[in-house]
């Protein structure tokens, strides 16, 4: 891991300008959220629309633009996009499979201080309940940049989770490859498989290091695409690694953990699974670091939980 820090929102803003150069049909629709598009707004003012604080209209307008051959990008706080406007996302965009890119920001703990209304911990669950939508949760700025570009190479609705304005560690270098629907093995290991996405990946890597020092060999997979889930990769790894832990900065219900549980329950009932995430409770206010610790989802806490998970009879585990 390098010392460089950058926010996923910054690299999204950079990538979207390049995408704008490349694809003339890309337009942005904002709901009082235009700043997230960075220089795109300055560079292509005629391709930017702001509908005000009206997220439902933002989605509807994007659908109309898509129906006229545009490739709209919408963005807002994940909560207002995936909660306030969820029915519009479902009916206007998903039922028709429209080519609209939806970017929810400030997910996980990154809206920290704003309190629970802005803490998006159920957005993946909400979007995943709706058919047709690809869901991407990039681990760092590099991946956010690549994913932003990749979603325009894909035709159809995409929901991407970004975080706040705060800079965060850059995990991946120039050689990193992102492909929709493919998990990336970041660390090989044989004792336990850690699957995570988004900001939880960084913490999982810290946990990996702590575990390594204790002589535990963990594999770490970055599952940036939560749907479609990279089933082939998981089935391959779990044919030899029998203990699996999912880590997400999201509610344990409905998100990555559930997706993995659904797969393994049906295909690998011999595997033991521990789902780590926010345990079916609402968020609270605090800095991102504080909240990670508060919910037991920072590197230390993850390592501790995995140690006891491996030690104990997993049947008595209550995550």
């Amino acid at each position: 891991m390098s010392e460089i820090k950058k926010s996923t929102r910054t690299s999204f803003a950079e990538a979207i300008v390049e995408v704008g150069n490349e694809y003339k049909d890309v337009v942005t629709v904002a709901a009082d959220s235009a700043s997230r598009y960075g220089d795109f707004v300055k560079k292509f003012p005629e391709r930017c629309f702001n509908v005000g604080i009206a997220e439902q209209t933002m989605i509807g307008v994007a659908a109309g633009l898509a129906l006229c051959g545009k490739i709209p990008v919408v963005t807002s706080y994940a909560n207002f996009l995936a909660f306030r406007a969820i029915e519009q996302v479902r009916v206007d965009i998903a039922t028709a499979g429209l080519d609209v890119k939806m970017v929810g920001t400030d997910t996980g703990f990154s809206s920290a201080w704003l309190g629970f209304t802005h803490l998006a911990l159920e957005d993946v669950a909400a979007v995943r309940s709706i058919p047709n939508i690809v869901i991407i949760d990039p681990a760092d700025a590099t991946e956010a940049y690549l994913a932003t570009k990749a979603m325009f190479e894909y035709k159809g609705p995409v929901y991407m989770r970004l975080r706040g304005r705060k800079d965060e560690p850059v995990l991946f270098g120039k050689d990193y490859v992102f492909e929709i629907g493919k998990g990336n093995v970041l660390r090989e290991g044989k004792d336990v498989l850690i699957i995570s996405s988004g900001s939880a990946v960084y913490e999982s890597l810290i946990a990996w290091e702590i575990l390594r020092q204790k002589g535990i060999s963990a594999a770490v997979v970055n599952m940036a695409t939560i749907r479609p889930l990279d089933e082939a990769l998981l089935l391959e790894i779990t044919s030899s690694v029998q203990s699996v832990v999912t880590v997400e900065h999201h509610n344990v219900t409905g998100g990555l953990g559930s997706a993995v549980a659904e797969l393994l329950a049906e295909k690998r009932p011999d595997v033991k699974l521990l789902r780590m995430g926010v345990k079916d409770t609402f968020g609270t206010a605090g800095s991102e670091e504080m909240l990670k610790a508060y919910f037991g989802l920072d590197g230390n806490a993850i390592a501790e939980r995995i140690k006891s998970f491996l030690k104990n009879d997993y049947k008595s585990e209550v995550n």
Partner: protein
Amino acid sequence: MAKIATREAYGEALAELGEEMKDIVVLDADLSKSTKTSVFAKKFPERFFNLGIAEQNLMGTAAGLATCGKIPFASTFAVFACGRAFEQIRNSICYPNLNVKIAATHAGITVGEDGATHQSIEDMALMRSLPNMTVISPVDAVETKKAVRAAAMLKGPVYLRLGRHPVETIFDDNYEFEVGKGVVLRDGKDVALIATGTMVGESLRAAEVLAKEGIDAMVVNIHTIKPIDEEAILKAAECGAVITAEEHSIIGGLGSAVAEVLIEKKPVLIKRIGIRDVFGMSGKPEELMKAYGITAEDIVNAAKSLLSID
């Protein structure tokens, strides 16, 4: 046995409860005739509020009433309740843990001809993702009545999932209902059929077919999706093979809840029966159940294929 839609039972139950509990108020968004809150409205017009086609305001108003000690029942179709007003339910009702009951009708694909926009196959997933929410999906008219009463007594937000289409009445009045407690309807040892709502009837039928073929199936009614009865599920899993059945997406509802419990506590063979991550479409309820593979026959086939793997 007589077929009665669970929404009919809901309307009657509300009208009865209204007599006993003066704090109950009922809100609707222009669908009172369909959701059957009209029965209550006729009896207690001063405690009934139609807010027009405005579901977000429906939930917000219910929240406000709850802060003043009322027990609001807010009704509309499941798609609008859980979809259009999702954020309002999250922020104005669940987070403050207000005593609001959301009784949504027309859930599932058996809504029929209205088609995809009106067929709610994600509602349980959405409601289950919200902390503080209790999610109940009753089987028939009898269970619905008991569930409505239980919801009124329970303090905190409750989501009641009701259907449009008449369904067979399975239980009699002696049936005992308790929020959060699964009910074993048929004992068995080879495979456990864990079902909710309309799929309980299909599962019982499937169990009969399986019995004829020498397969002893257990049938468990999980009417409360959240909090889920882990004990009942773990007990059912002793069969060694589990099938979940729901008229809902296999993502996020009963199937996911059971998978989550079992993979962590007692891994066994599982097969989830439900809508396989696609939208609904127009058609007659029975045709649709067939088209989406959620009939007794599908359960039978799933059971057989699970057991042959064994």
